[in-house]
């Protein structure tokens, strides 16, 4: 789907729903997921439809994911870190996580 324009830069590893993906330092979580070919990062609270990052600038909230156990984080605003654990946000967030 998406291809990186260059191939330079240091990489790191994070886990998305238990699977390891490589990302570039400086990627956002949303960019890293798109680059890894992941086609949706959440399902909506009302109809359960799948959604992927859209605006990539913090406006649309379509990029919501669970980051290190905290739900409803905007993936396009969170920079990746080594060892980060990402989970698909399924519908409404669970209070307390």
């Amino acid at each position, binding site marked *: 789907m998406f291809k990186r324009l260059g191939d330079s830069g240091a990489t790191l590893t994070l886990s998305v729903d238990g699977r390891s993906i490589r990302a570039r330092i400086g990627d956002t979580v949303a960019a890293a997921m798109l680059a890894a070919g992941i086609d949706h990062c959440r399902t909506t*609270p009302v109809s359960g439809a799948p959604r992927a990052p859209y605006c990539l600038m913090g406006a649309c909230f379509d990029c919501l994911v669970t980051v290190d156990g*905290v739900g*409803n984080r905007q993936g396009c605003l969170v920079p990746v870190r080594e060892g980060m654990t990402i989970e698909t946000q399924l*519908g*409404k*967030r*669970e*209070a*307390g996580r």
Partner: protein
Amino acid sequence: MAASDYDVAVVGGGLVGAATAWGLAREGCRVALLDEGDRAVRASRGNFALIWVQSKGLGLAPYAGWTVRSSNAWAAFAQALKEETGLDVCFQRPGGFHLALSEKELEARANVLRRLHNQPGIVDYKTEILDRSQVAKMLPDIGPEVVGGSYCPLDGHVNSLRLFRTLHTAINARGVKYLPSHRVENITKDDGEFRLTTSGGTIRAGRVALAAGNANMRLAPMVGLEAPMKPERGQIVVTERLRPFLNHPVVTVRQTDEGTVMIGDSKEDSTDPSGLTLGVSATEAERAVRLFPLLANVNVVRTWSAIRVMTQDGFPIYDESETHPGAFVLCCHSGVTLAANHALTVAPMIARGALDQTLVAPFSARRFHVQEAG
């Protein structure tokens, strides 16, 4: 005498006015609902949407009975609205809580309920004090500081945004003439009909029902009535949608059918609806987190302030005019809780032309004079 344009002009397009207009239309009246424009201060848009029984009536026992009556009528009211509009106001009555964060708070709460209960003529409103373990069975996510609370099975809530929309859809379907931008400037009675001078022209009606919230204070004297009001401001914090965790409304925290959590119940002596003070919302939020620690990391998506409709003693006012027969005034704080009464009990009285004093005599504004004289 000229045939009036309408049988009844209801003044005020909020929850009280809309519920009353709907009830009048069901009785076959030709109804006009006069409202202000978009810039009006709309208390009805800021409500917390509780249908709340516990605590009501301390100082005026019949208010407890009046509230219980409406709570009991709500299911049928919601069902009728659904049948007419296809819209669901999400009425739920799972019973509600008032929670205490210390033994002192719990004792104070128990005292209020004892005093309420010991009044002569009080109805059984079924509220009991529960200890921490009893509360935890129904609200498993309470924080360690919660020592107990009071529980009333007659407490419930609705979807606040949808209730307002549903009422307006329902009155429209029943042929009520909704007239926005008709701020009432003057009311006179000539030749047996009322003439309401408004910013949108003159409206003629056989009867008038004033349901304009705090503005009743200005309008009531035009028809020989009075409505002593004391508005206050409240602030509300709204979170993102969460999976259901709170199965019972708590007086200051409730989870809507759509998953958002509303946190509220602040009181300030202010009539500026546009002001928000961080201190107040922060205090509300902090207390909510002590009640339910899992709210600690939840995102807040909105905060707002709104003006509460409040009579000077907090109890409703229902009166009919002696000098201007056919003019009625309805004032209350709890426009959601009492909506079923306004639609199903008060509106039919107005349609018949006289209040049923066996039901509403305790709520006459004449009580304010007794206090002054005393």
